[in-house]
């Protein structure tokens, strides 16, 4: 089920609507999200970084499971976290801090794997390239940096290299408001929007600016057409501008060079944009608390949702697993779904734990896939494995001998059972064949 989730900086909770039917789902309570601070972690649960008053030194990140409106897990990182992203299978959560640092957590264990100083000012937006090897971060000082996740964890390589980052683009003069990347992993293009009223298109492979487009107003959000022909830029003046990437634009029209049209509803400023998976529906969140779904082909509004009185600042279109809905829809299965409701991982760590870092450097954690058949599979953590191994090693040889005997016995019994089954199968087979042949004979006769 494809759902639209949206959050607001005022406490209006996280709204959740079915994109195609328009039915509102559960509303997850007590969320005051930061811009770009809402993430769906591996389709399993929702995470959002929270706005904090400036006095508190630590930040806060909350988790909601799909099935419950209450906050389930609260974590308090060392500083306020603004943007939050997770990789597609939900193994990691990456957050950008207000000091310019980027935090990298492992979801399953909650450990902070890495924290590095990425920018001189607060990080405003983050995203992963579609092959999830590159992390792109934008900051309040207008700087955009491209990080290779391989390099980030390669301490020696970091020291060797001149720059810890792959590229640093500093052509924007003011805060970067949003970024989006195209397809193609490290060969993709990125589109970035900034408060300096421009959107810039960059090439990740060549590391250079391809195009800079001036808009009549500040662009708060960008979304890229799946065919990468155009991109949509949500502006503070309430319009969504359509700027061409691939078409030749000869003359400058009423809006400016490369801008070929607008989607407009006379609303207040557009704050966020997201494309549905089919690439036709464009979802926009607005300053006036509504969420509009546009048909990008016909430029018409398909649907309007209302979240809150205050502005919307995050809109995501995610695929939500069906099982979580069963609790409400089918009461008979409530016990089943409760049993199967995924357990949320522990809270995120505050500091990089350096003491056991050396020992555990090869951490293994298998994410829980949302498909129902392996839902029960627990996390196979490195810790568990080491514990089991050490237990095995500590047991005396006698105990092992007994264990072996027992296993042998089991084996023998199993073999016998197999034999029995085989016989039964042979008998059945014979029986069936006889029946069929007999039927045939009777029919022919």
């Amino acid at each position, binding site marked *: 089920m494809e759902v639209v989730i949206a959050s607001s900086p005022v406490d209006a909770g996280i709204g959740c609507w079915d994109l195609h039917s328009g039915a509102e789902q559960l509303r997850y309570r007590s969320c005051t999200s930061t811009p770009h601070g809402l993430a769906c972690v591996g389709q399993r649960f929702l995470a959002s970084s929270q706005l904090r008053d*400036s006095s508190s030194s630590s930040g806060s990140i909350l988790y909601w499971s799909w099935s419950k409106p209450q906050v389930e897990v609260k974590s308090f990182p060392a500083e306020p976290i603004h943007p939050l992203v997770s990789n597609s299978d939900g193994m990691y959560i990456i957050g950008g801090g207000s*000091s*310019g640092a980027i935090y990298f957590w492992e979801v399953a264990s909650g450990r902070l794997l890495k924290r590095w100083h990425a920018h*001189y*000012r*607060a990080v405003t937006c983050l995203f992963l390239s579609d092959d999830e090897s590159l992390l792109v971060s934008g900051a*309040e*000082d*207008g*700087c955009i940096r491209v990080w290779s996740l391989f390099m980030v964890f390669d301490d020696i390589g970091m020291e060797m*290299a*001149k*720059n*810890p*980052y792959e590229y*640093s683009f*500093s*052509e924007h*003069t*003011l*805060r970067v408001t949003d970024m989006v990347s195209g397809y193609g992993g490290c060969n993709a*293009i990125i589109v970035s929007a900034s*408060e*300096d*009223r421009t959107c810039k*298109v960059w090439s990740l492979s060549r590391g250079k*600016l*391809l*195009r*800079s487009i001036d808009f009549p107003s*500040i662009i708060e959000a960008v979304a890229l057409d799946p065919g*990468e022909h155009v991109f949509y830029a949500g502006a*503070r*003046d309430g319009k969504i501008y359509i700027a061409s*990437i*691939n*078409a*030749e*634009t000869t003359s400058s029209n009423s809006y400016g*060079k490369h801008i070929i049209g607008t989607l407009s509803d006379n609303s*207040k*400023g557009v704050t966020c944009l997201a494309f549905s998976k089919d690439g036709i529906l464009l979802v926009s969140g607005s*300053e006036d608390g509504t969420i509009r779904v546009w048909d990008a082909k016909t430029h018409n509004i398909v649907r309007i949702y209302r979240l809150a009185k205050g*502005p919307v600042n995050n809109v995501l279109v995610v695929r939500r697993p069906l099982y979580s809905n069963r609790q409400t829809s089918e009461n008979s299965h409530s016990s089943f779904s409760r049993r199967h409701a995924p357990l949320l991982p522990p809270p995120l760590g505050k500091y990089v734990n350096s003491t056991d870092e050396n020992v555990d450097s090869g951490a293994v954690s298998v994410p829980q896939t949302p498909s129902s058949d392996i839902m029960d599979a627990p996390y196979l953590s490195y810790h568990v494995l080491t514990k089991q191994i050490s237990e095995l090693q500590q047991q005396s040889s006698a105990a092992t001998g007994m264990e072996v005997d027992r296993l042998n016995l089991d084996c023998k019994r199993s073999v016998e059972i197999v034999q029995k089954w085989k016989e039964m199968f042979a008998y059945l087979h014979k029986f069936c064949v006889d029946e069929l042949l007999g039927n045939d004979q009777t029919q022919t006769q």
Partner: protein
Amino acid sequence: MARSKPSSSKKQPKRGVDFKKIKRKIGRKLPPPKNATNTEIKSKAIILPEQSVASERAGLAVSKKGLTLKELLQQTSHHNAKVRRDALTGIRDLVLKYPAELTLHKLAIIEKLRERISDEDKVVRETLYQLLKLVIFPALKKDVPGSLISLMMAYIFNGMTHLATDIRLMAFKFFDLVVQHYPSSFFMYAEKVLQNYEDILRKNHIYLQDRSKLKNALVGLVRCLSLLPCNRRTVDPSYGKNTETQGSLHAYELEVPKEHTDFSSIIKRLEDILPILVNCFQDFIPLVHPMSSLDAQSFDCMLYLLRSIDLSVKFFLYGIDKHQTDFGVTKPTYNEKDMPVWGEIATPVFLRKFLEVFPLNQLHNTSGKDEDKFFILNIEITEIFLHSNEWIFTSAILMERFLEFIENLLSGKIRFNSRSGKALQEKHLTSLLPFIPRLVSLVANTWKSRLLQAFTMAFKDCKPESTLNLAFLSAIEEMLLPSKRQGILLLDASEPEILDHQITWIRELPVLLVRLGDTLSSLSKVILHLLLRLGQYAPMNSSLAWEYDIMQHTLGEFYSMCLDDGSILYGPFMKLPKDCQELSVCCLYYFSSLDSLLLRSLVYCCLCDNLEPSVLFRIIDVLHSAYKIGHLQLVDLISFFVTLVARWKVLPGRLYTHVENAKKISNRETFKAITGAVCSCLRQMGDDALIFQIVQRVILDEIPLNPPIDNLCGMLRLLVILDSRPTKLSEQSIIILSNSISEYLIDAASYIPENGDEVTDSNQISICQYYLVPCFFLFDRSDKLLNLVLDLMGSSIGEDNSSLACNHDTQHTLDLSSRIVAVVSILLYMHQDIKIRRRLSSCKGEITRILQKMRLQLIDPCWEQ
């Protein structure tokens, strides 16, 4: 002629005696008979250039002498030098006259001309050189296939190995010419050419006598070497980038593969040539030292030698650098093998020896002119030293010498004597300045402070319009901010002394900006860029960031200044081009707390008519963004906005859509847009109630100043947007507002279209609505305000009656009558609006009072006059 004679003498004997026999002696020639006809025919060749049997020349391109191109080309290989030279000049005339001829037959022409490259005759070669230089190459600039060059090159190489030295040197000159016009050709023949250079330089002692020739050859070498890639220290490539060329980003790009030359062979050759250059230079030194004066030729030779050394050193460095940055990711152009040989072992030995020469001629204090020459040479050597210092570990003593020289240069202890010296010194200083940051970061502490001292002094002394500033600024940027390439800080700002210098530079920047005015907008742009980078990159809560914040006091002057007598002096901001303005506005965003003084000078700029509206909107945007991240106080921002709305000058003029009024209308539209922008900013700020209180307070301060109708309208709009249904206005403010609103309504009434007129201008209706709608909103929300306003309107009609019994001033009467008309039309207009009609019904008392007063006025005796 003579034959007729003997035949006649043979016949005579047969005729007998009739004629007397004349005896003639054998061997004696007879005198010609008197009646003999002179049949002699004299012939002379007549050359008729216009009529040739072989070819019809009409319509053909011919030279001044009437020769076709073909003939001329044939003559170029004539055995007579003079003919060859004439042929070349002929070709020149012809090509100049008929340029098409050249493009048609370029291959044939070049094919023939190239043979003359190694002509024995000096004059012919010189003529050919001039011909190629002035006529043929410039004309063929656009389309030269490589084949043409290769045609030439074969003969040039031939000339380079010619036995006659003259021809050899001339061949280098020709090659120089080719490279000058087609730089890529160097890479095609680099190896061979360098080989030839090497040969010729090896035998330099032969040419020592003829230095001008050697100089020519060296010029060529310098030109070739400067084509080699090196780490160019450009100011900042991002300033002048051009990204608008591509129409379609995903389109298939016809990418011409970058000419990939195998640099390894060039490296090999250069490896050989560099020691020879050094030797050659050292050969000059003994010639120089004992002499009291240095002649121009050898000075030039030395200079070019040094340049060549410099360029080749740069090239090696580039190789090393590239090798490092590539890090094996892309195909390395340099073999692993080359690098270590170059980096550590081979060069330093003789280069170090060479550098030992420095400084030249410090002992002889000769004439001023000479000193300049040595000075230039010294600078060149210093440059080489600075280029190479990254991989040569020089001895401390030598290092000292260089550092002292640089320090002296910076502090101006060494100066040029000649008149043009100032410009020269600037030029050379520009070439040295880019090294300063790196040098400062490497040298020992004592030298660090001395160099920085000298640097800071020089920067301070530098005149604003000097070209040096650009170099200074890029050096400062490198020393202040983490560099773009490396991402690390060159200087440790925690050291107090360095910090002191950094602070001095930062403080100097706004001063320089103000002093520059709008004379050099490119330089202003660089400064603003630097300021912006500083704001972006200064670490939070560091002393640099602090210094950046302090800078806003001085930066106020850049925008505008309020003089003591109340007049406003606009700073350079107003006159700079738009991109500079945008940059400077962006700088505002990074002040961690914007000063109200700076805001004031900003608001003066905003209120100025000359400021472009787009820049004004940018300022609003940026200030709002700055508020959002907590860099600006809420009260300050609101008072900025309200001041803007209250004082912005809308050009007077009634708004009818006449063409000549278009400008005025656009001005009002701008004001509307400003009000709109401010409204949307105010609405996005969050807590409406709180903001309303502040806005109300500020507006009430402004209202007693009697702003023009448009500004009042704008302010009312601000109030309306933040207000809610039962009004939040306080009692006191309602009273103040009612005063001004009643006046305002009477003013606005003039825009109300007359009732009877059916075809009223739609434009006028919209204007009228624009003025009146905010009032209606206020009335709708507060009955009290409506009552008060109606009261005031009534009294405004009646007051004259009470105060002055009978006023005979007709002007005044007219005034009064128009006022009555206004009140009536407003009441009627209000009545049309359904919401207000409902409100009006509750204040019948006030309306009757107004009507009574009108009646009184009408029966007033004064009225009849």
